[in-house]
């Protein structure tokens, strides 16, 4: 177990280094951020001075080594546009994104697993067919459009829910979170539903396929032969087996939802870190882009690790070992 964790950590350090170099070179290739950030009335000398002040006049390799030296000390640099440390900027926005992503995943799982089970148990019924048809819609409709439709229907037409922004926040476990108040939920529900839609459809399909397969297995027949109630058979024996692929896929999807909630965050003006990334790319704010991706890679590593642990608990046959070990 310990060797496994150490090896995992070493691997992720290599991934971080390679990723930061790629992003560094990529942003460098696009151009000089000062060209975009500078006051248009500025003359050539001011542009040169601003470029030098940010260290952007040095060769790429030198800039990268300066970055590495500071990064080793935990300093990922100051944002060009916000004039504050990039890492702090992202951590300040992270609770909003985590909250949104968690709410979306909860919606997806709480609705998706029962719906998928139902569709798997009664594949020929009208309900089962409609669930599957709905899941196709959930897959194929673009998030951007669905988000706007949600706003048009629930905010503009009915006026039930706010169209954009985040509700009042309160301190919870050291993070500024909004789900503790009713107003916070009113703001959270539309963007979370929008973000959940894709994963909801994914879970429905996974749960249905898993259920249909499990129902044909010997252990289900055996459990029935033992005289267990249908609820016990489905709720314990089938569900546990159905959950393994769902947990694996949802673990990966949770990372994606956090990292790429950007479309939903833009439409609903949700002040999360995805929106920050988009703004930073538009301004070529390299310290923020690099720091953001470092954090996201770290998150993915952590989530993958958690998925491995949960799966080994669900299925004791799995072991926490590397393939080569």
């Amino acid at each position: 177990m310990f060797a496994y964790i150490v090896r995992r950590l070493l691997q992720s350090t290599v991934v971080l280094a390679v990723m930061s170099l790629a992003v560094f070179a990529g942003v460098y290739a696009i151009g000089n951020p000062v060209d975009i950030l500078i006051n248009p009335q500025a003359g050539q000398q001011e542009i040169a001075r601003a470029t030098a002040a940010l260290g952007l006049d040095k060769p790429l390799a030198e800039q990268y080594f300066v970055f590495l030296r500071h990064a080793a000390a935990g300093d990922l640099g100051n944002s060009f546009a916000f004039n504050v440390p990039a890492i702090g900027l992202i951590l300040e926005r992270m609770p909003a994104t985590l909250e949104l992503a968690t709410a979306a995943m909860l919606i997806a799982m709480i609705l998706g697993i029962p719906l998928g089970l139902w569709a798997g148990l009664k594949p020929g019924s009208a309900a089962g067919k409609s669930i599957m048809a709905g899941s196709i819609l959930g897959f194929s409709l673009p998030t951007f459009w669905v988000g706007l439709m949600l706003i048009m229907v629930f905010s503009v037409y009915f006026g039930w829910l706010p169209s954009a922004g985040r509700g009042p926040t309160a301190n919870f476990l050291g993070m500024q979170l909004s789900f503790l108040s009713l107003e916070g939920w009113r703001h959270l529900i539309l963007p979370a539903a929008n973000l959940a839609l894709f994963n909801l459809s994914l879970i429905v399909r996974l749960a249905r396929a898993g259920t249909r397969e499990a129902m044909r297995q010997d252990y289900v027949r055996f459990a029935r032969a033992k005289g267990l109630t249908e609820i016990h058979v489905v709720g314990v024996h089938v569900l546990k087996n159905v959950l393994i692929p769902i947990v694996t896929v949802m673990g990966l999807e949770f990372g994606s939802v956090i990292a790429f909630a950007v479309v939903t965050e833009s439409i609903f003006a949700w002040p999360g870190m995805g929106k920050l990334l988009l703004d930073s790319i538009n301004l070529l704010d390299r310290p923020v882009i690099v720091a953001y991706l470092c954090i996201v890679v770290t998150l993915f590593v952590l989530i993958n690790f958690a998925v491995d642990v949960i799966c080994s608990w669900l299925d004791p046959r799995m072991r926490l070992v590397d393939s080569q070990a």
Partner: protein
Amino acid sequence: MRRLLPVLLAACSLWTLAANGTELRIGMAADVTSMDPHFLNIAPNTNISWHVFDALTHVDEDARLIPGLALSWRAVNATTWEFKLRRGVKFHDGSEFTAEDAVFSIERTQKVPNGQFQIYTQRIVGKQIVDKYTLRLRTATPDAMVPYDLDSVFIVSKKAAANAGSADFDSGKAMIGTGPFRFVRFARGDRVELARNDDYWDGKPAWDKVVFRIVPTDPARLAGLLSGELDAIEQIPTADLPRIRRDPRLATAQKVSWRTIFFHLDQYRDRPPSLTDNSGRPLERNPFRDIRVRQAISKSINRQAIVDRLMDGAALPASNLVSPPVFGHAPDLKPEPYDPEGARKLLAEAGFPNGFAMTLAAPNNRYVNDDQIAQAVAQMLAHIGIRARVELLPMNAYLPKARKREFAFAMLGWGSFSGDLALRSLVATANPAQGFGAWNWSGYANARVDELLEHGFATVDAKQREAIARDAMRMAMRDYAVIPLHHQFATWAMKKSLSYKPRTDEFTFAHHFRPQ
């Protein structure tokens, strides 16, 4: 109970009035990055600064200079400006505004790390506090621009902002100004909250509380207004204008903006990139050096059609580099009439009877409908035989490439509060020491224009300076230094119960919204 109900209802409506009647919620189109008024000079940041702070000089809705914290100013001699300051102005913490604060603010613009406001103060070499309400500023050479430059220098409180960094402004600790609103809260990426300054010297604003919500997605901003969550929004997409005008619950305010859209065309290189004859061979000579070719291009563009069809009427065909209300606009210049026949003739006379081929570069996310305008101009150019391939890039990739001069024919938009300032950046011969021609992608060089500009910037009399600025504008535009297209309109939409005094500089000022 039945008798109680009307009372309860009345109480409820009173409560609604109290909650909404004096609160104004505005949807902003771009993100505010910092509260520090001396850090980044970008429109959303400056827009917020104008609520909490004042400058010594202000500009009105037509971008003309008016008194701010300075009541009057005059040139004592060729290199010294004297400012008489407004008496009895209080900062939000109750302390009095004096010349000390003005000097401190001017000095702070030069100390903020990576700050972008030092360009407005770097030519000031001497600061003298004559008395509490009189300030003298000295420049090394005669400089007419000092009062204009000071419009960009926000006055912070010396007491509150001494040693303050950008983080102290974000937190509100140093956000002490003299402006119409007090700072309440800045939630990055989400909102800025302000409260009324009851002692404001220029009249009490109508709103107890103002919330600027940051909603950059156009449809989401409009949805916020339609659902009643926002009271007013800025930057309405032209495609949504007809619909908003039809809606009986909404009102709009519109004004010609200071932003002018034009094309730079490379006149300085023998063989500009991408220019070929129709068979793909590089051209022997640079056609843009011939004024007849430049004029032909200008004549081939149907500006009225672009304004009517692409901009839904929300633009004005341009003949100048600044829009009509702005200082130095030459009203006698008229937009080039659409004349493809004459354009073809001019091209033939210049030795290009079959035209040529080139790349037309433009951003696709910066100016109103920029990508569609580029496509339309390319088609119009095709009618006179110039085959233009359109290259569209997002601004973050476009600008660095353009500044490396990778384009021979490139779109740019410019907002300037005087014609000579625009000319200085866009068409003056490149001269880094003076800051001339920093954005002169055309490589246009005309010693007469440069001379007029230098003369104008040293002329402290505003009337004379405007006459000189107009002469320079005429000279550059009659020479087709660049090809102007149109001046954008700035549009705001709001609830029917509100009115707004629209501004040429596109700023959205809460204190200029009024309940009707």
